């Protein structure tokens, strides 16, 4: 699905990964174009998280390639992906619990070349203000509420000034009010030019934000297109009803 006017930031080509005999991803091609807001959906066990882990460097595919703008990143370690502008959040929030909110933000900020404590702190405060967390900067991350933790994880990913952000189930178990805030922030960030890939089971939220829907089932990509078209797709309906 290459659109010459919008370059691909991440390209996954024929990604294959097995776990003990089961194909978690079975020859998946997945391109993320600049400016996309992709909703990646599918029944449990369809391989969504595996795909994300491979595209962010946390897992090595058995075969297939990952390209970050023309750079071949297959099997490179996750910190290199981060250094080249790939940010992500985790299904179960993985904050640095005993470090303060500000310190959580400073870690990615200070990994960037030419960063100083002053510049990173200023950038951190800016993002924290955007996320409405600035008043908590001195608090240890483990003392935040669940929703605040999700926001902080988003903020932490933002510190990398990422070209693309992978959000792994950001709406899972989130209070409706908080969900609204998250959606608002995601849309705001998207409008200011950031690319998103959002994995979730919360169809309502996904359909509100996604400009493009990619559906996976049993390790394969079975649909990829605008939400309206995908929702009518017979194979998608079959996949969901089959479970």
């Amino acid at each position, binding site marked *: 699905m290459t659109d010459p006017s919008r370059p691909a930031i991440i390209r996954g080509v024929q990604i294959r990964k097995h776990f003990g005999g089961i194909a978690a991803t079975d020859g998946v091609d997945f391109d993320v174009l600049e400016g996309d807001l992709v909703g990646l959906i599918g029944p449990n066990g369809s391989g969504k998280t595996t795909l994300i882990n491979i595209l962010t460097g946390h*897992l090595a595919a058995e075969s297939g390639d990952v390209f970050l703008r023309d750079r071949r990143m297959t099997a490179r370690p996750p910190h290199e992906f981060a250094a080249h502008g790939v940010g992500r959040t985790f299904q*179960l929030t*993985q904050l640095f*619990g005993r470090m303060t909110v500000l310190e959580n933000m400073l870690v990615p900020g200070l990994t960037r070349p030419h960063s100083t404590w002053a510049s990173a702190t200023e950038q951190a405060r800016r993002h924290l203000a955007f996320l409405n967390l600035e008043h908590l900067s001195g608090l240890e991350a483990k003392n935040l509420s669940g929703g605040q933790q999700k926001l902080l994880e988003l903020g932490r990913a933002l510190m990398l000034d990422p070209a693309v952000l992978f959000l792994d189930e950001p709406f899972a178990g989130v209070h409706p009010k908080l969900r609204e805030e998250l959606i608002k922030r995601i849309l705001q960030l998207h409008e200011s030019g950031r690319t998103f890939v959002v994995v979730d089971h919360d169809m309502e939220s996904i359909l509100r934000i996604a400009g493009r829907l990619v559906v996976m089932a049993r390790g394969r990509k079975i649909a990829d297109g605008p939400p309206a078209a995908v929702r009518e797709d017979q194979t998608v309906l079959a996949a969901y009803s089959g479970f």
Partner: protein
Amino acid sequence: MDYSYLAIQATNGAVIGVIYALVAVGVTLIFSILKIVNFAHGDLYMLGGYTAYYLITLAGFPPLGALVGSMAAVFAFGILIERTMLTPLYSPRTERKDEYGIIVTFGLAFFLRNTALIVFGPFALKPPSFAPGVLRIGALAVTNDRVFVAVVGTLLILALLYFMNRTIWGQALDAVSQSRDSAAIVGINAGRFNSLAYAVGAALAAAAGALIAPIFSLSPDMGILPNINSYVIVILGGMGSVGGSIAAGFLLGEAQALFTAFLPDPTRALSYSNAFGVLVLMIVLMVRPTGLFGRRHVRME
């Protein structure tokens, strides 16, 4: 090649193997239920040996009775330890449970060893034999004590396997090891089973100590070597696999004995036989950091 020497070493290896298996099974049990490596396990083994000794010499127990008594005493002690020191492991408010487990059990080992040094004295003590005399099979002569160790040790292991697989308690333990929460939903009081797991593990170690004491005598630091070897065994046999630890324990005992037999320089052989297990351990961990049968701790949902 001196075959009789080899045969003796092989027999010794089998006896030691049974002891290692007994100790390792305890460590495995504790690891699967409490999710910690019990660094104090060797000292429970030591405690078992000394308890049996004093039951015989001070309370006049017969050797077999002392074995049972020692197991019971250390079982109770295991419950005490678990209730006083290990309950934070189940509380969600405790952070860094790995660290807690390592340091607390390490500290417990330190405490037990030094207390033993003072209370029991540093000199080796030897309890009376279980069964005096020697068994002769062909050209091979094995002391009855060693036979006793092998037989009783094997019986205990079989009893444990039966307990784990065929009784409701054992199956409950299995359930708790897989998921505390699910077990709780089914009505299993996980707290009680943690105590049970630790106590059973401790009792098995105590049995091993009591069994081996008449052969190799007692000293306060006798637990150090079995301790280290038990880590070798659980890592080789699979953390959490009872059957694996038994097999690996037995194999290690044999391998160590045969290694000693084949090493040309006898004085070196003895010292390095102690290092045999750890060397194997290092190599295994370097090749497979999660052990031979451990699952890679991949945090992917």
